[in-house]
């Protein structure tokens, strides 16, 4: 009986509302923060990026749940974030121009074997990461690329030069 009471510990509706709105604000701020400061090449995450992500998720935890271990608050805040993510993807599907503006457009890193170093630096891709991407596509180095493109999903696409 005490267990059931503990599981269904009541919480005021006001408190749930407050934490839901807080969670939504945290979500929106984080999306904006990642757009501003985050790494574009999500496919090339290193272990330090992963550790930062995990620490970040925990850093915002108390702001979202108010440090309460309440079931209703946990359910309400997680559903709020899921709904917000769903709403954003729906908006993007309806307005592709908005998505391009917000998610960014693909960036060309190599053209006809020439590495565009300023672009590389602006997109915060190191040259060793570019070389690695080439080798993963079976090309020794960027001089063999007709085109290397940093896609919006964070991966690097390589189009090899025609042999001969």
């Amino acid at each position, binding site marked *: 009986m005490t267990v059931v009471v503990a599981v269904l510990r009541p919480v005021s509706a006001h408190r749930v509302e407050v934490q839901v709105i807080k969670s939504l*604000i*945290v979500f929106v701020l984080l999306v904006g923060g990642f757009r501003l400061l985050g790494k574009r090449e999500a496919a090339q995450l290193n272990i330090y990026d992963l*550790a930062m992500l995990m620490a970040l998720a925990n850093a915002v935890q108390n702001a979202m749940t108010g*440090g309460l271990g309440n079931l209703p608050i946990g359910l309400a805040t997680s559903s709020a974030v899921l709904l917000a993510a769903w709403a954003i993807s729906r908006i993007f599907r309806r307005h592709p121009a908005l998505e391009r503006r917000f998610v960014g457009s693909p960036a060309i890193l190599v053209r006809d074997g020439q590495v565009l170093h300023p672009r590389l630096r602006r997109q915060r891709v*190191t040259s*060793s990461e570019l070389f*690695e991407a080439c080798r993963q596509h079976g090309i*020794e180095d960027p001089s063999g690329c007709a085109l290397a493109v940093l896609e919006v999903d964070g991966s690097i696409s390589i189009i090899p030069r025609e042999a001969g």
Partner: protein
Amino acid sequence: MLRDVLDYPSPHAAMVIAGKTAVVYVVLIAGLRLLGKRELGQMSLADLVLIVILGNAVQNAMINNDNTLGGGVIAAFVLLVMNRLLNAVMVRSPRAERALIGEPSLLVCDGKIIEGHVASQGVTHDQLYAGLREHGFDSLEGVHMVVLEVDGTMSVVPRTAQVLKTRRHYRGLRLP
């Protein structure tokens, strides 16, 4: 209602959160570097669990039971900015990148296994041939080079690939 939502720590508490978060980030990076687990592509479940637990372990050290919206946002942005700085350093300085991430290693050059590199990277011949098969090669014939990348995956460059100029860009990729 609005006041309940938009709560924030005192300026002093905010500075404490920012400072603690910055210290935690530096310690995390140093710890992971010392531990020497850099191969994200080869992470076992135990390694992944370690990272997740690390994030939980440092939570209270960063925000110290601060339940305000402002406190969480400050900690999150300190982490994002520190990570951005680290990546900016690595883009500008190949030496820093080598020290933090490591460098790729040439395992096979023109069909010949470089035994010294294979041994020092702790790669067995079985693993090397498994890597080749994953790329559709059943022998070293037709293989120009095999590189063990910093994330622990193997790249295979076939001999048929057009080589316009050959340069070795990394110490690790030079022939012994």
